[in-house]
């Protein structure tokens, strides 16, 4: 069974005064197997962020459903959603979203503390994870004291600390320079190589070329998808670019 199943997902935003409805998603279906690394691409306004928010249960779908490990998130009452999200999903945001009131250690531990885990468990998990991500030296520093790349690694550590079954990344390289981006993508590769399922939304062809599969969203529907197969990263990069060109061209052709 697939880890994540998205079935005919629709999302319509209606303005508060019943004005014009915006169809952000008009029927998206796909599934993600355990251990996959998938990227979602599309232009601004194509609905990819909406897709991520609905998958993350931050937003409720208008129609269709999302099954994570066989459970329909729509069945969960609001008060259980937070716990569900905490235990099963890890988030990496474009703006890192570290809390400036916590140092790096406490930022990473936040989900664990919220989940009510014991201190012994924290002491077991954190050093190993920090070592793996190369941020052991900065655990006592505050977000304003570290670089963008280090911030993003901290954010990844926070996403991984509870060993979620799915990591969601929203433009994770968007706020990074190219060297830091390379470092982060290598990190996601290695995380994925360790068996972690990753779903990433991105603008960047380079970021997408690290994935095993790329889903293209256009006007609220799944327009196309590419599997990397046996291609090396360079070739896959080329294929993604071609699809994007076609995607952009498709619009000008009408």
């Amino acid at each position, binding site marked *: 069974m697939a880890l994540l199943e998205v079935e005919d997902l629709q999302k319509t935003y209606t303005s508060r005064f019943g004005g014009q409805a915006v169809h952000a998603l008009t029927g998206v279906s796909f599934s993600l197997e355990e251990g996959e690394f998938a990227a979602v691409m599309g232009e601004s306004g194509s609905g990819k962020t909406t897709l991520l928010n609905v998958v993350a249960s931050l937003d409720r779908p208008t129609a269709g459903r999302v099954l994570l490990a066989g459970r329909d998130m729509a069945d969960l009452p609001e008060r259980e959603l937070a716990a569900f999200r905490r235990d099963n*999903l890890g988030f990496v945001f474009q703006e890192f979203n570290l809390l*400036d009131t916590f140092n790096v250690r*406490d930022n990473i531990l936040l989900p664990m503390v*919220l989940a009510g885990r014991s201190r012994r468990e924290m002491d077991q998990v954190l050093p190993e994870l920090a070592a793996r991500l190369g941020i052991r030296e900065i655990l006592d520093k505050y977000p*304003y004291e570290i670089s963008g790349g280090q911030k993003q690694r901290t954010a990844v550590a926070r996403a991984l600390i509870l060993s979620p079954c799915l990591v969601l990344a929203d433009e994770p390289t968007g706020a990074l320079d190219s060297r830091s981006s390379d470092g982060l993508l290598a990190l996601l590769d290695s995380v994925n190589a360790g068996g972690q399922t990753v779903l990433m939304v991105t603008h960047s062809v380079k970021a997408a070329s690290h994935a095993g599969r790329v889903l293209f969203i256009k006007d609220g529907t799944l327009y196309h998808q590419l599997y990397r197969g046996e291609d090396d990263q360079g070739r896959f990069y080329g294929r993604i670019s071609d699809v994007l060109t076609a995607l952009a061209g498709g619009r000008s052709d009408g």
Partner: protein
Amino acid sequence: MGERFYARLAWDCLRKNSRFYVPYLLTVAGAAAGFYMLATTGDPAGMADPGDVRAIMRMCTVVLALVCGGFLLYTNGFLMKQRGREFGLYAVLGLDRANMTRLLAWETALTAAIGVGGGLAGGVLLDRLLLLTLAKLTGRTYLGPVIYGRCLALTAGVFLLILGLIFAANVVRVGRMRPSDLLISGNVGDKEPKSRWFIALVGIALLGTGYGIAIGRPALMGSVTQDDILWFFAAVLLVIFGTFALFLAGTVTGLKLLRRWKGYYYKARHFISVSGLIHRMGRNAAGLAIICILSTAVLVMVSSTVCLRMGLESHLRGYFPRDVMCEFGSMVEEDWDGLLDGALEEARAAGYHPESVVRYTWWEYGWDDDRVVNAVNLYFLDGAGYEDMTGRHADLAPGQVLTTAPGDTLTVMDTTFTVAGHLDRDDDPAAVYMTRALGLEDPLLQGEHQQLVVADADAIAALRLEAENYRAGDPHYSCGFGTFVMHCVDFDLPAGEDTHGCLGVIRQYVYDNHAHEGSFADGSKDIGQTRGDLLVEYGSLLFLGLFLGTLFLGGAALLIYYKQVSEGYEDRQRFAVMRKVGMDEVLVRRSVHSQILLVFFLPLVTAFCHMAAAFPLVARLLEIWDMLDRGLFLLCTVGTAAAFAVVYTAVYLLTARVYARLVGR
């Protein structure tokens, strides 16, 4: 670029920041209105009979100007911090320092026009009401102009000066910042506050000393003197500085200790609250300390002045067993019975209705013999007076007395009396009456050293003659005695009859008909006149307490509002992140509540502590105004605290809604 451009830009700036500027302008206006109104109460053109009131009010005007200046400077600093990014943007867009100065100048001009102008207009409108309130509280009629030109000019001058200073501070502030700093200010990059043990310890020491003075000093005090007022202000200053130090350093240090206690810190509720509070305290400590000090000032001022005013009537009654107390004496023998009878007749003829009439004669004798150690004051009352006061016949044989003093005999100079009966100083109606009539209630004069002696009127006259020559020139012996034997008639008047007018009639009669030989004494008093005098004093104090209390409370409320709004903006993003990471709404709400609650009720609780510590010393200082009723003061203190807590909570709840709207989803 023309001036019109800057004027427009400045106007837009104020409008865009209306969430902060509207309260700021209201503060300027409120402060100006308050200042103007207070100034009018001290203006010579105002009250018909100014008395002490004017001087007190003038002094308070100066204090208020300083407080307003400090407060506006502080709120402005707060405002500018919020606008850092905006000024950064202007710098990036190419406004140089000169341009920025012009912009700030226009903003200041607009603030002055709206704030000070509005304040003066409001002040003029409300002034009449305020002065009528003052007149009502002090029991006088108010006659005065509608607009006080001098006060308007003074207020405008003071506030333009304050705004000018603020303008200068802002120019320096903006000039010192670099565009890159400006762009990020108000957002992130907020350093974690350091724990400062030294300052925390200094704060505890200052506060401890202040509390020590307030609590320990009253025990060392004799009667209240000027020194004690100085001690009080020393304690106030110590507590103010101590509060600042403790809020600035103590809270952060304490919270950091909590954070180091891992078993406590790594729990979901404490984790968010403690880390949030450390940051909040770092930047809000000064504001919280100001809220705390303003609150304490309100509490102490209102409770003590309300207490004085509420105690007025019983205090007055303490000295007036009857409404009108006529008291005369002269050096030569006179028919006082006849004189006073005639005087009473005259009063009746003038339309007054004296009732519960008490007639008596009294004389005071005291001596101090350094071989006997103790000084003793004896108050002699004649037997007829005793009968009037108690309804019992004194039944004294020659050489006999009734007294509160112990022993079977009583020796005064060379005369020894037999004690025919002992009087209970607390229960005997005559003892109680005389204590009140002679104003002996001062606790420092009470006890063994004051005794009442009931004796025959002739014996009293003889003692007075004896006293004049007794042991003159003996270096070990000194005595003091009443020059006159005083003849009194006390009575009540039915409600509505003018006590002072009645006393006037009686005085006139006695003045016209006494012997006019030797010297003459008049110790008469009436409750109406005294009440009027006290009302002016206590009423003015109450007025000041309420007026300044309201003003300070407004200031505290404004600070609370600013804090809620600015923290709402800061926390909005923080809680959004935490929700995504898996924090549920219940925990969000609980965490928000526990933080905000602590932050806002810490100053209140501290203010209550200060108030409790100040209680003993303030209670003693109230003795200056003859307020001796501790129970009443305690009641006023508790009542004021309760009322204040209600208002404070209401302000908190109202502003908390703004906060909830900002952090809510």
